[in-house]
């Protein structure tokens, strides 16, 4: 169906900035309209790959959690909190993978996986550099690699201002 969702979003954004914004008198409402326009830019930037990104994130999180489980289990010494975490990882990994590409389904799965990852990463951070915990270092690095990839996604108004040089560097690193 045309216009597609993406075409419609971009069209609404254009209408807002080219038709509505010049007619607005109050500084406050002009400012609000500009924020709305930026919001649409951000949504449009993620529209096409939203399902794909969530699906690939879910796979990556699943893989990283599985690595974390193995690494924690291989530690010479464990403790109650690590043992409980292994159980939690096993539970979330046992859940069947989403059989739908609906964003709500993928998002709910993502939230569960990320919720466990949150706890895992805190433990990894606690273990970093401590003797006897070296087995966790590789997983920690892998998790941060994934989180960096996610953190670079999408469009932010900062990309053309405060983060301009940082984003140029990040894109150059991604190419190499």
């Amino acid at each position: 169906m045309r216009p597609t969702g993406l075409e419609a979003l971009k069209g609404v954004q254009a209408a807002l900035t080219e038709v509505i914004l010049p007619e607005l008198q109050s500084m406050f409402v002009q400012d609000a309209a500009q924020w709305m326009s930026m919001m649409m830019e951000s949504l449009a930037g993620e529209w096409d790959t939203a399902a794909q990104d969530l699906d690939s994130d879910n796979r990556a999180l699943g893989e990283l959690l599985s690595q974390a489980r193995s690494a924690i289990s291989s530690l010479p010494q464990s403790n109650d909190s690590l043992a409980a975490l292994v159980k939690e990882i096993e539970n979330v990994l046992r859940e069947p993978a989403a059989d739908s590409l609906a964003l709500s389904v993928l998002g709910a799965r993502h939230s569960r996986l990320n919720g466990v990852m949150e706890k895992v990463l805190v433990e990894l951070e606690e273990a970093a550099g401590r003797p006897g915990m070296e087995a966790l270092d590789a997983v920690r690095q892998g998790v941060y690699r994934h989180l960096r990839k996610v953190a670079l996604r999408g469009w932010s108004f900062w990309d053309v201002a405060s983060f301009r040089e940082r984003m140029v560097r990040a894109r150059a690193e991604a190419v190499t």
Partner: protein
Amino acid sequence: MEDRIAAFLKSRLTAGEVSVSNVYRIPGGASRETWAFDARWRDAGKEMQQGFILRRDPDASVLETDRDLEFRVMGAVHEHGIPVPRMFWLEQETSWLDRPFFVMERIDGCETSPTKVLMDPRFYVVRDKIGERFVDILAAIHRLDWRALGLEFLGVPAHEGSCGMMEIERWEAIVDREALEPQPVLRAAFRWLRRRLPPPAQRIVLVHADYRTGNFLCDTQGQIVGVLDWEMAHLGDPMEDIAWACLRPWRWMGDEQVGGLLRREQFYEKYSAASGLRVDEEAVRFWEVLGNVKLAAIFLTGGRSFCEGRTRAPMVAFLGRNVRRLELEVMDLMGV
């Protein structure tokens, strides 16, 4: 709005007739509505007029803060040479304007927008001077005797070594309360911070806690005539303000210059000379990680307000979706 403000002023000015005009809302002010207006009245037979700013509590915001804290701190520092607008009235009663508010002096002919301050040729030519004033005023805030100013009500840290942990706990509680989704990077950062507490503060000072380009009014002579947004002010480690001023989100020009104004080494040197305090780079790194986490927590708070329908402000919604770049910065600073 004019009539309601006029009625309030009449009750405070003990004037006969008060007329209010040119009421308009100023964009920004993510945690409190900001309104400007002009008022005219007669005082002892003399015609008076004045521009005012009214800061009213919002329905919801990116940060829940205490209005009388900001009012009291600004009032106290104004008396001691820090350039802030003069504070007039704090009103907790909701019958006047539906929500609590305070009224302060409006300083005209100045600019606060970072884009204007850093790019408009009229300000560009005095940028070095603005940078110098920016440092001098921060040092002056940190030199204030907060006990003599009666600012103990802000909460005195137990000792110089407890400032870092106090702020970690404050912001972690906000993430606990406000996050709608898991936040692996922020949670890991809190753990990282707990393991790397900074050395004890060289002295406990009044921390502005939002001191940055965008939060001061300056003129085309390069004078900073008003430091704004004191709502997060507290007592703590001066390095917290140093780090906050250095945060990447406030480097509006997209390069490494602090606040788009001066190089980091210059900033440190000038601050040390003006304050007598040494800038500890490892402590600044700690506070810079925490600063980015704090900003993310503020955005998450706004995101929740929007999702729960307590605000319809597009800025709040948009900022709520901008946590990723802060996470990137946090990971860069953590070196992971």
